[in-house]
């Protein structure tokens, strides 16, 4: 059974933060087409602040997620602050006490994050939100494991499903948040939340894969 170490894996959060900061302008731009154009800016600010706090610290992935979740929750505001804040806090909670992360722990982590988001937001799959990337990604991961595929192959499935889910938001009409006022005019534009979620899931997966043994 493939696993990766929870210990000393805080670098995973740093690489996620790097990607988010890199994509700051892109995320704001796609957000600006149907939202207020601040998604990249606020995400970069939160992830950047968390990275500052984590740099040079030798913490577990769980502890790093907790720092990230708290920063997002306490400092960012908006809707992404609480939503991603609760997701990473829940991730941290599920990793507690696990030295080795196996597919089961990883899956329970993803599910806890999803449930946290659903406890404060009212979106469903198809509403053109980050759930359109997150939910199919979790399903693909669980499906691959159930089909006895390896951890790394399941992570590939997760990334692929997240990106397919992200792309599916192109053809969705926003049902929630500010872009929901646009109705049909939100068609043809990616959802910024689904896009950032796909970035996050991809970075976690790549980093986890490289640490599997």
């Amino acid at each position: 059974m493939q696993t990766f170490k929870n210990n000393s894996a805080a670098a995973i959060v740093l690489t996620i933060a790097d990607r988010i900061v890199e994509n700051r302008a892109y995320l704001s731009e796609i957000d600006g087409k149907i939202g207020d154009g601040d998604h990249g800016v606020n995400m970069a600010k939160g992830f950047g602040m968390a990275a500052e706090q984590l740099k040079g610290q030798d913490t577990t992935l769980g502890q790093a997620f907790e720092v990230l979740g708290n920063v997002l929750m306490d400092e960012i505001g908006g809707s992404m602050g609480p939503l991603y804040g609760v997701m990473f806090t829940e991730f941290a909670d599920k990793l507690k006490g696990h030295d080795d992360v196996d597919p089961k722990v990883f899956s329970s982590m993803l599910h806890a994050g999803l449930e946290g988001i659903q406890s404060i937001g009212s979106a469903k799959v198809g509403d053109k939100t980050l759930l359109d990337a997150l939910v199919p990604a979790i399903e693909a991961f669980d499906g691959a494991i159930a089909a006895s595929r390896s951890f790394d192959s399941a992570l590939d499935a997760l990334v692929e499903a997240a990106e397919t889910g992200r792309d599916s938001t192109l053809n969705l009409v926003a049902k929630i948040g500010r872009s929901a006022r646009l109705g049909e005019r939100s068609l043809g534009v990616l959802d910024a939340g689904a896009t950032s979620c796909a970035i996050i899931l991809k970075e976690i997966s790549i980093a986890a894969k490289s640490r599997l043994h």
Partner: protein
Amino acid sequence: MTVKQAQPRKNVSSKDNPSEPFDAMPLRYGDDPYVWACWLYYEDGMTQGDIAEAMGISRATVNSYLAEARERGIVNISIEPARLASLTVAQELKRHFGLVDCLVVPSDDKARSLIERLGGAGAQALQRLLKSGDTIAVAWGRTVLSIGERALAPGLQDVTVVQATGGTRASFGYTPELCASSIADAVGGKLINISAPAIVSSNDIRDMFMREPLIESQFQTLARANKALFGISSLRPNSTIHTSGFFESVSLQDYLARNAVGVVAGRFIDGHGRAISGPLDERTIGISLEMLKNIELRIAVAGGFDKVPAILAMLRGGYANVLITDAATARGILNADGVPEIDQRGAHRGRVDSLPAASKTTQRIYTKKFLNNPDRVVDELLEGIVKSHVHLLHPIDKSHRALVARNGPRSGKVGLVIGGGAGHEPGFYGYVGKGLADAVAIGNIFSSPPPGPILRCTEAASGGEGVLFVYGNYAGDVMNFEMAAEMAEAKGIPVRTVLTTDDIASSPLEDREGRRGVAGNLFIFKVAGAACDLGFSLAKCETLTRKANDRTYTVGVALEPCSMPQTRRHNFDIGPDDIEFGMGIHGEPGVVREKMMTADAITDRVMDRIFSEMKPAAGDQVAVLVNSFGATPLMELYILFRRVEQRLNAKGVTIVANWVGHYCTSLDMVGASISILHLDDELTVLLNHPCDSVTLKMS
């Protein structure tokens, strides 16, 4: 054929033209900006830069219009000769007599009679020129009736049509009563007749009539008219004036002997347009020539070669500033006034130089802003606010993300906490102070504050009677404020929330609770702050605030996007000639995108939408807020306010308080919103309650 050099065009829009570019496209071009652009370019020899200025659009758009016009064959097919002649002559009439506009119908249309064609043209003009809230005086005549039979101006509100003269016996088919009522029917206006004969038997009888309260009130309406529609009668032997019955009781010889050449609204004028006094003056009940000239927009419709002297006299007298006539008559008028033959002018001025290909607009990508570190914009903003308003506000903690009113919270009073993203200055710190909010939580640009500062505000505002949260209905704000509310409840502070939902364009009435909160917040904060300051219970404060929210109606219109300090790029696109109705205060794209139109047309669109929900009755009272989105200057806000006042006034609604300025902005967005608070006695008291904050001060 005389070919006259093209005049350099210094006054493309004459100074007494009350309208702006583009929507103010002169009538003669119909509704087609391509034709207009082509005309200015090919026929007038204007440069593309001058055309851009004249049309109120970008140079790049002019270029693309010309290119597309060529592609579409608009300029390859030569302009139909009759229409070309009409356009030329209309333009010359406008210039020569200093008219606001002029419409000339081709003369060689054999299919319809002149009266029918003038009626059609007049109907078209009326549709363009008549606006909601107008009072139009309508005189009598065959042409006026022909307009009434063809006009259709749907969608107008509060139009009053007032008969310009007294009545006549119905021995002819176009009595003053019938003319006014046909126009009123056509435009859906309220009809005010003059309940008196046009001409009575003596001066005494006239005076008696004029003293009657009913007639007096009808004349008051007539005096309020801002538009007039009338024909012109000639006094030639074949004129219908002799058979109309209008002047049946007197001989016209007196007037002819004094060189009368025409009749305008029942009054005689000479060849120079001067009023001719005569025996009828003291016996006529109707609009005087002086009253007529005081009306802002005066539309004369007349044609036929026999009327040339009469129309010329009318124009010389300045009785009309819009003329609708036919090409033959128009040429006759110009010839009679010494203007050289202009028939074929311009036909040989076609350009031979080729057009540059439509170039892509070279837009600057980054906007200029006063910045130090883009990531510290909000912190630096808050530092400035705290230092500037040190006597009113102080920060609860070092971050300045939670500010409390120095003279706000007190024991025994319900606390009021407001908040939201930065970028809306003076939203929302401007509404913190005595009689208003006790504390404000401030987020990042266009982004809700996190729960932490909201909680600190709640604790600071709490006076033991609970705390009311009032903030705009946005998903992010709701999440963060709800978390803060839970935390406050856990600390024993009861919290009630009112989400503001005044943006009526953001969702249909059925989904009223899903609407977002925008500039109308000002009214809702004001009412909530007063209720708290008066020492009402938390439940009562909540009820009153909810009522203020239910009775506040806002619609915003964006002209240009805003740009975020971090990116310094526009965060949405809007076409060079487009505007957007229903724009939110974060630059969320609006609900309907339209072509640029006049300030009044925009205001009318907004007010119609507001009225459709507010359903005001005469005698109602309101408060009005005309708010800039950031980059729209006060000058334009007052132009909007002026029209808002006209529309409310036309409905008999009184404005008891108004605010015009920057009250809830969206960074540097160009645009404005109009908010109306539909008052009742209870809300009026709360609105007038004293307060002292950065933005609102009332004593």
